[in-house]
């Protein structure tokens, strides 16, 4: 198995910098996810690792071997594409066997060896019955499995996946998520997986690299990127609904620092002590919707708000609350698992925030102060 290392990789398309100085270290047997919105450079990064693009500068290593300018076929990788890229004129068997057939002489395989290996992989992915069919006769989920089988047959060092689940319907996606994760753990293949779906990333990854505008913003475990976002972008990109952001000002009241926010004031720091204060004295508070409780009556430290919209989601309810009814509308979403009371729009309520879990970002740079 293998580790993958990217060192200051840059890729430009004309004037657009698609991948901007990206350095990553992917460990052996790791399920590593590149997460970001469309156009953030995650797919280009994957294609650079695959050898489908070459970087303008920087190096790429697989197992300490410099592969930066090697052809894809010489990197010992396999890739699953978003549209699966199954060859329509070949049967499922031929599709899966294709990578082996191309290397038959090199690997010294007989036709029986190939057949055996195809059956083995087909059994693993439960597609034995489909081997004689053409891709056009398969459902999306079945095509997905065939694509996975084709990527597995060679027992590659690294598995690359470009949004492999995004063409499946929501229910099947959930099933395949778990299955893919189990398969990856069973086989222990280093996997680099690209997705824009934060839920997919959180549920599958060992570690996540959150990307935006060609840069890696944060690398960490799902818990780290969820609970300790290094940048306001990470907070607002991950989570459903995402982190609430409230822009506040730090004011000096005779030596006491006061945080002045729309609708409420509070002593600064609100929770954890920041390492340094921002230059502009302006901060952004990042409050996860699930770290907010609501009550009907004011208590010390609660924030008054007015419900704008109630979104019941079955197991939980999301309240859209304006915390600044007197001034400029400032909406905060609160995610409440169990509601003891039925709320409706227009009601006044009081928000209790778990300040120990509130992130504080520099309003100018967006980076976390804590």
């Amino acid at each position, binding site marked *: 198995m293998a580790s993958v290392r990217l060192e200051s990789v840059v890729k430009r398309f004309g004037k657009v910098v698609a991948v901007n100085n990206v350095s990553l270290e992917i460990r052996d047997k790791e399920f590593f996810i590149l997460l970001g919105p469309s156009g953030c450079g995650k797919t280009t990064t994957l294609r650079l690792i695959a050898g489908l693009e070459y970087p303008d500068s920087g190096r790429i290593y697989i197992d300490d071997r410099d592969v930066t300018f090697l052809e894809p076929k010489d990197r010992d990788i396999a890739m699953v594409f978003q549209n699966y*890229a199954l060859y329509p004129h070949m049967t499922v068997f031929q599709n899966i066997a*294709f990578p082996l057939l191309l290397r038959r002489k090199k690997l010294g395989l007989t036709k029986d060896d190939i057949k055996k290996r195809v059956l083995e992989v087909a059994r693993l992915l439960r597609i034995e019955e489909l081997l004689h069919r053409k891709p056009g006769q398969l459902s999306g989920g079945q095509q997905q499995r065939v694509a996975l089988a084709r990527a597995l047959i*060679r027992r590659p060092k690294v598995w690359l996946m470009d949004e492999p689940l995004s063409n499946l319907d929501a229910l099947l996606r959930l099933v395949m998520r778990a299955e893919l994760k189990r398969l990856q753990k069973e086989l222990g293949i280093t996997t680099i997986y690209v997705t824009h779906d934060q839920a997919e990333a959180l549920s599958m990854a060992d570690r996540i690299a959150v990307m935006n505008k060609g840069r890696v913003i944060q690398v960490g475990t799902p818990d780290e990127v969820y609970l300790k976002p290094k940048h306001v972008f990470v907070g607002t990109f991950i989570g459903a609904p995402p982190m609430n952001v409230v822009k506040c000002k730090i004011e000096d009241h005779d030596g006491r620092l006061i945080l002045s926010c729309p609708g409420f004031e509070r002593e600064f720091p609100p929770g954890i002590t920041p390492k340094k204060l921002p230059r502009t004295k302006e901060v952004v508070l990042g409050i996860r919707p699930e770290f907010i409780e609501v009550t009907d009556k004011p208590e010390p430290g609660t924030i008054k708000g007015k419900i704008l919209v109630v979104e019941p989601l079955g197991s939980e309810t999301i309240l859209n609350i304006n915390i600044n009814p007197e001034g400029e509308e400032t909406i905060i979403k609160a995610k409440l698992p169990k509601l003891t009371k039925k709320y409706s729009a227009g009601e006044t309520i009081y928000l209790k925030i778990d300040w120990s879990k509130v992130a504080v970002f520099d309003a100018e740079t967006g980076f976390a102060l804590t």
Partner: protein
Amino acid sequence: MSKKINIKKRYLALFLIPGFTLVAIFVISPIIGTFIISFETPSGFGLSNYYSVITQTSPTKALVLLNDMPRPPPWGALIHNLVWTAIHLPTTTFLGLVLAYLLRRVYGRSIVKSIMFIGMVIPMVVGGLIIRFMFDKFIGIVPNLCGLIGLTWLDKSWTSYPDTALLALIIGSVWLWTGFSLTIHAAAIDSLPKTYIEAAKIDGASDWQIFWKIIVPSVRAATLTVIVMTMLWDLKIFDIVYAATKGGPGGASTVLAFVMWLYFALDLDYGKAAAVAVILTLLTLIPAAIYIRQVMKRG
């Protein structure tokens, strides 16, 4: 319900009448007319037109002339057409496909494709004239190149000699027609998802393997269209021959359509001209049938 459908059908027929009338007057009736004329002889109806057309031994009008083989042309118009197809069809089809594949990554490929397509845009009579110039001893590129590389026996005006006239026309027609194959194949290759080729690259395929194992089978429908259209074109060919060699020298480059024209325009022998026309039409039905069957198969 059925009444509704009947009304619909009646309307359908009403709308079909104008189009069908035009087709009947301008397409079907001339075909039937030609068919009838081909059987008309001074002594009533019979097969004598066909008989004399097929057994004709004058080199300029013969359809099949295969005595004393092997020898240079004339071999008869029908054989010339078949030789033409045998060389021209695989060459243009394959050349267009390979060029389409190679050009796919070339900067400015649309310019190259447009230039190649000119061969199809210019009137075929002009094409014939260009072929004549291309193979001229003094100004032609081909004889001069042949002279340069030491093939002195080809350093002559190809269209003036029976052993090279037909070949000159065939090579010239490859040059004229490759743009068609290139354009159709390029469109087919462009419409393939890029990931097919990328997946094959990652799977370990070389450029050559990608071409044979992925591209060729994936653009089969386009290739079939090219093959059928080229076969039809090869059978119907007339204007190039007319402009470049007039079927000469000594009938060494005649083709079916040209022989038909000779009977019709020079001999004013409409019966025989019609007989050649019917033979030609029957031959063109072969590729048409192949095509229709394939299209039906694909549903």
